[in-house]
């Protein structure tokens, strides 16, 4: 067999494995065999690395739905910048991964009409976490070299990565271009990565980070060298942990996270307790009000005219748009659009939307003060291990939102954060979340390389 043939064989095997896993676990919305074979053998830093792409990130000519029936059939005529860069670096894309509709969920159970709920990689009765559930699930299951391109608005990278026992990294807001990302909340959305292999994730970040003229909110700051940070010393790194988030977590989760912090301390880091009262008490409310408000405007464009799910043109425009949106959006999408519209309506706007945006300022200031003292902030990623699907189905919307209590803070402030697997609770993986200051990203890769899960 020639080299080219053996590479093609590897790609075919990876596709087969991904499809076999998908049959049982529902991690993919679409596969892109043609593009995978086309990319095979292409040279570059990510040559021979298989990537999956969350289904809210555009891949040219490959169906991209954000997990919603309202985008069924949409084949973008362009690549997202992050995807374009991955392809130029030789990465081989396998397909688009499952997610909560438009990212609206913490368990990946809020899938769009006609989409499947992904199942936990170690036990199918349990959920993967969301909204990047497919990304985390395939990262846990794949035996080929793999990185998942994914996205977080309020915790959608670290939540599923923590539940599935893999590493999840969400960079600073603006570090990776959002061009070609189907927006949920434009001031909160960040593209990042999930995987098992920290080095591959670091290499991927080096490729996708950096300014893009197509996204005016993407940063012009120089990109740090992520792979070079792996294995560097952590002597003198000052970690602030938030006791309230340990006390508020499942005791087994807290125990595993404390153990990991002790490991880091033994390797030279220093630990200190810190308190972020505003973040602890108000980040969830401020986050949801802002995210829903932004979502309600971002999703106004889906009306059955230019792309995605549609029907015969009938009635006046209002009737047609209402017909399409009512029929094709799922329950949680409707709830967030309606609540977001409400929070921006005359008479409510100052009390809800504007107040949340002002509280966001105070929370950002609180983080700035904290990072004057510590290099990194540590909390459990999720307050509990992955729950069963049957139990998630019993939760009210508000109870669903409460799962994000630890993750919304860094997302609201646009801070880089990473979840690292540290152990297990109730036979399910536990993740420790590390958050660093704006654009001070590589310290997280350094710390992660020193954590040994038990």
């Amino acid at each position, binding site marked *: 067999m020639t080299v080219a043939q053996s590479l093609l064989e590897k790609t075919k095997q990876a596709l087969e494995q991904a499809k076999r896993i998908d049959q049982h676990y529902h991690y993919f919305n679409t596969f892109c065999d043609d593009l995978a074979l086309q990319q095979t053998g292409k040279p570059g830093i990510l040559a021979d690395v298989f990537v999956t792409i969350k289904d809210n990130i555009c891949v040219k000519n490959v169906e991209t739905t954000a997990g919603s029936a309202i985008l069924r059939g949409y084949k973008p005529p362009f690549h997202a910048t992050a995807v374009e860069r991955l392809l130029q670096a030789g990465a081989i894309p396998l397909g688009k991964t499952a997610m909560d509709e438009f990212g609206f969920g913490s368990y990946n159970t809020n899938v769009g009409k006609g989409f499947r709920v992904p199942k936990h990689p170690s036990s199918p009765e349990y959920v993967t976490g969301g909204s990047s559930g497919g990304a985390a699930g395939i990262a846990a299951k794949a035996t080929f070299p793999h990185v998942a391109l994914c996205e977080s608005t309020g915790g959608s990278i670290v939540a599923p990565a923590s539940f599935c026992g893999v590493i999840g990294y969400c960079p600073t807001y603006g570090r990776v271009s959002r061009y070609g990302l189907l927006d949920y909340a434009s001031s909160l959305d960040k593209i990042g990565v999930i995987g098992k292999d920290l080095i591959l994730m670091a290499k991927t970040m080096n490729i996708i980070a950096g300014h893009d003229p197509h996204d005016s909110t993407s940063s012009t700051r120089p990109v740090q060298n992520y792979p070079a940070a792996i294995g560097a010393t952590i002597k003198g790194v000052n970690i602030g942990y938030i006791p309230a988030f340990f006390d508020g977590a499942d005791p087994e989760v807290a125990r595993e996270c404390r153990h990991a912090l002790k490991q880091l301390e033994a390797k030279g880091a220093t630990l200190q307790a810190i308190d972020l009262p505003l973040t602890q008490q108000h980040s969830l409310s401020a986050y*949801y009000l802002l995210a829903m408000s932004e979502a309600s405007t971002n999703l106004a464009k889906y009306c059955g005219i230019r792309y995605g799910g549609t029907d015969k043109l009938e009635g006046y425009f209002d009737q047609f748009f209402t017909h399409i949106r009512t029929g094709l959006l799922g329950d949680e999408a409707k709830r967030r659009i309606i*609540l977001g*519209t*409400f929070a921006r309506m005359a008479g409510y706007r100052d009390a809800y939307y504007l107040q949340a945006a002002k509280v966001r300022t105070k929370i950002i200031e609180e983080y700035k003060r904290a990072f004057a003292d510590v290099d990194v902030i540590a909390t459990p990623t999720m307050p509990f291990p992955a729950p069963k699907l049957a139990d998630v189905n019993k939760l009210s919307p508000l109870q669903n939102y409460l799962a994000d209590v630890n993750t919304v803070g860094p997302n609201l402030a646009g801070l880089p954060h990473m979840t690292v697997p540290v152990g297990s609770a109730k036979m399910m993986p536990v993740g420790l979340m590390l958050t660093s200051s704006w654009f001070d990203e590589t310290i997280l890769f350094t710390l992660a390389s020193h954590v040994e899960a038990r």
Partner: protein
Amino acid sequence: MNDAIRRAATNARIALTEEEVERFSKQAEDILKAFAGLKSLDTRGEEPSIQPIPCENVMREDLPRECLTQEDALSNTPHKKDGYFKGPRVM
């Protein structure tokens, strides 16, 4: 709350059944009650953070540059005619 939810849904071009109005209103009440603590915070003199990081206006020369072709822009819809999108009636 029911009326506010009805009004918001209409603005958002989403039709709700009476059952949905009841359910969404009840859920909205729960959520807003849980978020009520925000209102107690003193934010006088605070600027709202529309972005998490200060963003500056980015300007460029107003010159034509490469963009989607008309054909590509129309490639995802059956609703088109003579190179334009075709929409529902407006009057």
